[in-house]
């Protein structure tokens, strides 16, 4: 299980702000989210970054999750 936090547009699309999802890594988490909330399809990567347990992760498909993990979807970070 991991706790997923949605905000802004994503939360509006899914109609929720927080959800527990059983997933061992980000890939299965994304799959589960899109399955449960079809409205999110195509919106989970565009211009977004993912933070796992407070750390922003690049291209995070394979990032592993622990049962206590917190996952946030946040805007992508630009480079200066």
């Amino acid at each position, binding site marked *: 299980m991991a706790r997923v*936090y949605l*905000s*802004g*547009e994503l939360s*509006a699309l899914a109609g929720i702000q927080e959800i527990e999802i059983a997933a061992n890594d980000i890939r299965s988490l994304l799959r589960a989210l899109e399955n449960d909330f079809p409205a999110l399809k195509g919106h989970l990567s*565009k*211009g977004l*970054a993912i*933070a796992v*347990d*407070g*750390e*922003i*992760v*690049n*291209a995070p498909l394979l*990032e592993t999750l622990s049962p206590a993990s*917190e996952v*946030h979807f*946040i*805007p*992508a*970070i*630009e*480079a*200066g």
Partner: protein
Amino acid sequence: MSEVKDYKWVGKRPVRPDGIDKVTGRANFSADFSLPGMLHGLILRSSYAHARILSMDFSKALAIPGVKAIISGTDMPLVAMEDAVIGGQPPNFRDLSANLLARDKVLYEGHAIAAVAATSLQIARQALDAIDIEFEVLPHVIDVQKAMEPDAPLLHENQFTQGIEPRPKIPSNIASRYEQVLGDTAAGFAAAEVTVSEEFTTQPVHQGYIELHSCTAQVSADGQAQIWCSSQGQFMIRAFCAHLLGMNISQIRVTPMEIGGGFGGKTTVYLEPLALLLAKKSGKPVKMQMSREEVFTSTGPASGSFISMKIGARKDGTITAAEGILCYQAGAFAGSPVRLGCMTAFAPYAIQNVKLIGYDVVVNRPKSAAYRAPGAPMAAFAAESLLDMLAIKLNMDPLELRLKNAAQMGTQAPYGPKFREIGYIETLRAAQQHPHYSAPLGPNQGRGVASGFWFNIGGQSSAAININEDGTAIVTTGNPDIGGSRASMAIMAAEVLGIDFDKVQPVIADTSSTAYSDLTGGSRVTFAVGMAVVEAARSVVAVLKQRAALLWEIPETEVSWSDGQASAVIKGHTSILSLADIAAQSANTGGPIAAQANINAQGAGPGFGTHICDVEVDPETGRVTVLRYTAIQDVGKAIHPAYVEGQLQGGAVQGIGWALNEEYLYDESGKMMNTGFLDYRMPVASDLPMIDTVLVEVANPRHPFGVRGVGEVPIIPPLGAVANAVARATGTRVFNLPISPPRLLAALNKKRGR
């Protein structure tokens, strides 16, 4: 994990490996490259802020002897909006293409319309003059608030505000709306005993790199292309050109020239695809270089902004809520960093209830580009001004107020996640203890403080280490050295290998000679590419131990490595083989010794800084003099402290310029009036005191040496620090940057009832 130990090279200040070339004039920057028989390319740019292109006629220009090719928007293939992920962020290639060469409309003064290649610059100039274009001039809009009004001149008829449900049916200059909510701000403000709120504006500012954009391109008959240019990433240039022109990535080879400053402004393309097209069309190499005027009118500044913000607090200083609306100018195409402004504004503080709404707004100005900590300085200017106003209202020391609310490990950031190990409180304590903070002030003088936060990033990074036959090493990476990174890479390699710094030669390779790496930006190179270097060096050490074991005919596990040599206890005696000894025997032990590391670096530690600024104000003229300045920052671990200090000093001075004098000035027709360094007033040496620095080192546990990125944070606090100092010197606060003499005197007059 990070280790606390005495390092041999990490933390020392050796001379950078590319230093001698750069002090003798031998280093080759972009414009220093040329090819025999090359043509010179120039760009025809719009002199209107907004106009429809009715017709273009190149016939007279093409008839001029020596004119070899002319291109316009129709020579660029139509590209999809987003068809590639580059360094984690897909640029909008359709917009980028239209920015490089306008198609049916010009959207700002300086927007490129056509490009010519000719046998000399003079002929190219004649050709530009001979191009006939018919325009229908359209009304334009420069100001961000005016652009948001329903009857404002519309830049894009097909742009509907994103982030609003249901999707609007009427097109708008507002490209998108972003909302960031934490907690319940209504409850937070209800719990507040004092509130402060204000409206702020900031002007676009240019990165101001001294090197003009320039590039040389060549295309062979079989379509193989080469580009020589400076940028913040040769792989970015390659990918962008390939996507924009419909080429295979393998067809393009980009050789990075030395880069004369970027600060985020060279994270995209302006000339390179045009030079490629001209080279292809003419069959000859083409060199292009912008003038300073072109750099100002046609390359991306940081966004200007309008910000309305409010904070509430209890009388003990606890901030209970913050809210605000941030409107950022994107320039002619969507994509301002307003979201990052919302994310960073209050990130230094543990505030339970924060609600920020961001609007990304297009206006008839050049497309904004990244500039050091994109989006953060203007938002922090508003937030840090409000904190200072709150401190004055509560009669609290401004550092105490910040300490009372400071984020620490476990604090939930306003954008969602909880911070891990961070060093913000340490910067505040260091500021309190710094002699600067308690030094006396004279009449008309004031002291301001402000803080700043930046995420920092990691990303895809590669490094290769080759051990030479004599025991020296080559470290090859794919990231331009924009401020001394060769030295950092060599230091980290020397540290892990255990050999002398000057035995390590760092090389920055072209795109065909090394593995992919994300661009140099976001303060990622010392952290992320450094991790790749460390990993490659550790692999080399493993190979060296294995080779030593072969030579000694013992198991590898019995070999240990330190100080650049393998050692083992053999038959009761300690035997030693130096790196050079092992390298000399490499043929006998399996061939050349080398290793490569290709990683996607994770775990960039966030950075926090706190700045102290003293100013003196001439009450009769409104001129502000910065008397003393101290920049304090958690840098994780400084690999080469002198270059880390340099990042803090340079960033602070760019921020001082942003606060005091830099701005884009437009006339009524939408033409920029200050397109040179004379009237775009960047700080000069005599404007400034020495910039004192304090490097706080709270190690980033995810980096082998504890490194955090350092380049972005230092430009964030100065806007607030300078404004707060001026407010405390005069009792008058300026909410609109820059605090130029006319603006400050007007504010002082108002206060005096004049």
